[in-house]
């Protein structure tokens, strides 16, 4: 579930407002370069942009985690732990990243495995089950 364009615009406006609010509040902590930001920027180029991107990515990841069955509180506390870099990576690749946890192959897996084995047997000329597979040689 990607952000729709309108939602994304809203999120950018919100992020900008939050960062601006952070800049002008008396809690002068806003003008400190955090250790994470100091270490991360060499790759990102502009630290401020990296922060905004991290903020947006966190919102994106939280939404995706909820869609994947993580409860709202859990999703919120999980994304809060991510560094800006991790949040951006997860936001970009959540569908492709492997999720370690498989216990068994499952029915679809076993059917797929049998299919692959039969294909290989056909290819090596042991069987001739699929007419569209030509044995090598």
């Amino acid at each position: 579930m990607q952000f729709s364009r309108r939602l994304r615009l809203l999120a950018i406006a919100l992020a900008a407002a939050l960062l601006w609010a952070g800049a002008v509040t008396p809690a002068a902590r806003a003008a400190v370069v955090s250790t994470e930001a100091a270490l991360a920027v060499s790759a990102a180029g502009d630290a401020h942009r990296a922060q905004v991107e991290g903020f947006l990515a966190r919102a994106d990841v939280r939404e995706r985690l909820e869609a994947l069955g993580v409860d709202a509180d859990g999703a919120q506390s999980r994304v809060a732990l991510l560094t800006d870099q991790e949040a951006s990576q997860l936001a970009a690749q959540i569908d492709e990243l492997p999720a370690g946890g498989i216990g068994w192959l499952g029915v679809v897996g076993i059917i797929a495995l049998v299919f692959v084995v039969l294909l290989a047997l056909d290819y090596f000329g042991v069987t001739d089950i699929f007419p569209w597979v030509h044995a090598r040689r």
Partner: protein
Amino acid sequence: MALDVPFHAQEAYQCGPAALAMALGWSGAETSPDELAREVFVPGRRGSFAVGLVAAARSHGRVPVELHDLGEILAELAAGHPVLVLQNLGLRLPFLSRPHFAVAVGYELPAHQLVLHSGTIARRPITFANFERTWRRAGGFAVAVLPPDVLPAAPDEGRWLAAAAGLERAGRSAEAETAYQSALARWPESAGAWLALGNVALAGGRLADAEQAFVRATELEPGSAPAWNNLAHVLLRSGRRPEALAAAQRAVALGGPHLQTARRTLEEIEAAIGP
């Protein structure tokens, strides 16, 4: 040889929480696979993401240091540190992929074998070749989950500091401070570690400690804009405006990726000084 790492047999799909519980248990952080499942398991994917495990390790006050090849994994094991790994036990094909977390707890060099706590089997041997294939197939993810006062076998300054910095986001300032002090014990000239230590002190309201650390960072790396910026900030908070102004001007003059923050600091100081 195999390290003394507590074993937790995994339940269906729960190899991530089980593996993390083993690594954390070894490091002295008390937790359980069930508790960790609530922190890392993603029901819709019937599994856990590696980055989720890394973040959860930090929230338990441990430093997850990523390793990049089998040599580094063996070096950590030789130093007595177990290594959490992600393998793809199946194939890189739809429905046949079987991503799986395990913990490397030892090796047998003569037999070319790695020893894993994996699934429901403790101390399961796997040949180096088989391990490397299944490990690379899943993206080559491996981390040593270390207590903040234990550096990796072949420590890399940048990697250690980056891994420790995430502890602050997790609210683990005490552990972050310990990790930065470990860095300074090993690399006394590390401007990055002094900056980090200053930031922890500043967050804790210890202005004198923060100032001292930032000054040390600027001495060691005069071209570090973050160090000058943060020094300016702490000087302003201590009421030493002329010194703060000089430091902020220095940070702005250095430019770089933190220019926007430095400008903001300078404006703040100029506003405090008045016309």
